[in-house]
C-alpha cells in the first residue's frame, strides 16, 4: 500500500509537502536545504503537486509571501537554513503574531562567521523566542512524518501557530535511507482541508490583519500565544497518537522520547540526529551490562517541562548535549533550560558538533564517563582540537 523509497532528508521533506497538498510554496535556495526546494519545483513542474511556487528573491520575502498566502487562507510551505533563517528572523515573529499555521523545514546549519555550511543547531535555537513550534527530528522518516504532523498541529484551532521542522544539515539532508511514503489520499484525509476561521483576506468579509498593537492590546496578544503554546502540548501528543493509528509510526509521546530510561542512573539529553548515535552507543553498552538512558527532546518549543521533570526524577547523572552555544554564558540553550527545570540535580552540559564537527562513538562514551565522574555541574566542549 505504501511505497518505500531510499531518499535524502530534503527529499523526504519535499514529499511531505506534496502529500500535504500545500497550496503555496515560497522558497529561496540555500545549502543544505536546496535539494528540497528543487524537488518541490520538480513536483510542481510535473503536475505532481498543484501549488503556486513563488520563486522569491530572498528568505525574507519567502516568509513574507508565506504570510500573505496563509493570511489569504492557503496552506503554505517553505524551507531554509542558517543565514536564510537568520534573515527571516524579523518575519518569523510576525508569522506567529498573526497566528498563521505556516510549516517550514529548517536544514540545521551553523551561522557565519566564519562561513560554514555544516550542521549545528545555532540557527534554529536562535529563533527560540519567535513563537514558532520547533520539532527536531532524528531521521528522514521522522522528517516526512513530522511535516505532515506539523500541519495537523499548526492548523488546530487550539494552536494556530507556525511550526518549524528541524533536521540536521548533511547528516540527514544529504543522507539517503529508506523512507516509507504514505499514500497521498490518506495523508490528505488525515489532514483535511485547511479552512481558516480566524483570518483570511476576502473581499466578501473585509478584515484588517496586522494592525498597530497599541500598549492596550499587545501584551494580551503575547499571552495568547503563550497559552496556545501550552495548549499545543496536548495537541502534539494527540496528533502523535492519531498519526500512529493511521500510519503505524510514533515518536515517543510526541514531545519527548525516552530510550532505556527505566534503569539508567546516567541519562543523556539531546535533540536531533545525534540521538541515533547515542542510541547505538546505549545498545552497545547494554551488551556490556551497562545501563545508560536517553531523553530525546523532540519539541524544543513548547518545551516539555512536565515530561522532563517526571522522566528524569530518578536520574543521577544528567548529560545535556547542545549543538549550540550561548556565547558569554558558556552553556548551550538546552543546558540552560534543563538547569532551570531540574533543581538539585547534577547537570553537565556538553557542547558538541558545532559547524559540522563529527560526533563520534568515542565522543558519546567520553561524555558518559565524564558525567559519571563529575562532582558538580559543569560545561565541557567535546571534540575540540588540543
Amino acid at each position, binding site marked *: 500500500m505504501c511505497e518505500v523509497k531510499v531518499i535524502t532528508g530534503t527529499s523526504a521533506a519535499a514529499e511531505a509537502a506534496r502529500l500535504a497538498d500545500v497550496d503555496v510554496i515560497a522558497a529561496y535556495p540555500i545549502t543544505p536545504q536546496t535539494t528540497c526546494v528543487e524537488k518541490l519545483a520538480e513536483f510542481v513542474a510535473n503536475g505532481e503537486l498543484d501549488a503556486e511556487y513563488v520563486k522569491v528573491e530572498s528568505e525574507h520575502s519567502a516568509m513574507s509571501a508565506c504570510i500573505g498566502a496563509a493570511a489569504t487562507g492557503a496552506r503554505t510551505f517553505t524551507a531554509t537554513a542558517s543565514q536564510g533563517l537568520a534573515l527571516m528572523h524579523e518575519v518569523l515573529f510576525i508569522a506567529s503574531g498573526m497566528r498563521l499555521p505556516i510549516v517550514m523545514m529548517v536544514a540545521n546549519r551553523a551561522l557565519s562567521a566564519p562561513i560554514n555550511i555544516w550542521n549545528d543547531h545555532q540557527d534554529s535555537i536562535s529563533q527560540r523566542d519567535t513563537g514558532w513550534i520547533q520539532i527536531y527530528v532524528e531521521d528522514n522518516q521522522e522528517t516526512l512524518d513530522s511535516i505532515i504532523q506539523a500541519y495537523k498541529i499548526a492548523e488546530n484551532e487550539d494552536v*494556530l501557530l507556525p511550526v518549524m521542522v528541524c533536521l540536521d544539515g548533511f547528516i540527514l539532508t544529504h543522507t539517503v535511507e529508506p523512507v516509507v511514503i504514505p499514500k497521498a489520499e490518506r495523508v490528505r484525509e488525515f489532514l483535511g482541508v485547511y479552512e481558516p476561521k480566524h483570518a483570511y483576506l476576502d473581499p466578501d468579509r*473585509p478584515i484588517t*490583519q496586522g*494592525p498597530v498593537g*497599541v500598549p492596550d*492590546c499587545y501584551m*494580551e496578544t503575547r499571552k*495568547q500565544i503563550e497559552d496556545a503554546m501550552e495548549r499545543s502540548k496536548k495537541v502534539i501528543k494527540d496528533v502523535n497518537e492519531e498519526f500512529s493509528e493511521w500510519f503505524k509510526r510514533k515518536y515517543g509521546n510526541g514531545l519527548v522520547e525516552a530510550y532505556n530510561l527505566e534503569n539508567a542512573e546516567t541519562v543523556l539529553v539531546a535533540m536531533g540526529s545525534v540521538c541515533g548515535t547515542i542510541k547505538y552507543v546505549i545498545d552497545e553498552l547494554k551488551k556490556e551490562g551497562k545501563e545508560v538512558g536517553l531523553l530525546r527532546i523532540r519539541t524544543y518549543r513548547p518545551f516539555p517541562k512536565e515530561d522532563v521533570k517526571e522522566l528524569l526524577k530518578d536520574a543521577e547523572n544528567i548529560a545535556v548535549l547542545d549543538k549550540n552555544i550561548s556565547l558569554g554564558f558558556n552553556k548551550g540553550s538546552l543546558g540552560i533550560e534543563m538547569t532551570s527545570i531540574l533543581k538539585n540535580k547534577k547537570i553537565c552540559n556538553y557542547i558538541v558538533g558545532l559547524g559540522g564537527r563529527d560526533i563520534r562513538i568515542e565522543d558519546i562514551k567520553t561524555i558518559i564517563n565524564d558525567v559519571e565522574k563529575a562532582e558538580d555541574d559543569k560545561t565541557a566542549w567535546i571534540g575540540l582540537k588540543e
Partner: protein
Amino acid sequence: MGKWGVIVMVTIAAIIYEPGNSIRNKTGSWRTFRPILDNNKCVKCENCYIFCPEGAIQEDENGNFKIDYDYCKGCLICMNECPVNAITKVREEK
C-alpha cells in the same frame, strides 16, 4: 475608556473584524477653524469632495455637498480648492 478606546477582549492576532470602525473616532474635535460651505455659491465642481483627506464632505439627497463636522479636522483644503469661494472659515470656539 482607555487612550485607544475600550479594549475589553483582544481578538486573536489582534485582527479587526469590523471594517471601517474608525468612524468611532470623531476627529472633529481636532479643528481650530471650521469650514462653512455656502450651497448657494457652490457650483458642484466636486473639488472639496474629492480632496478631503477625511471623506468628511458628502453629497446629501438633494445633491448638495455637506461637511460632516464629526470628522472634519479643519485642514481647509476644501476652502483653498474651492474655485468660487463658496467655503469660508470661522474660528472654533472651544
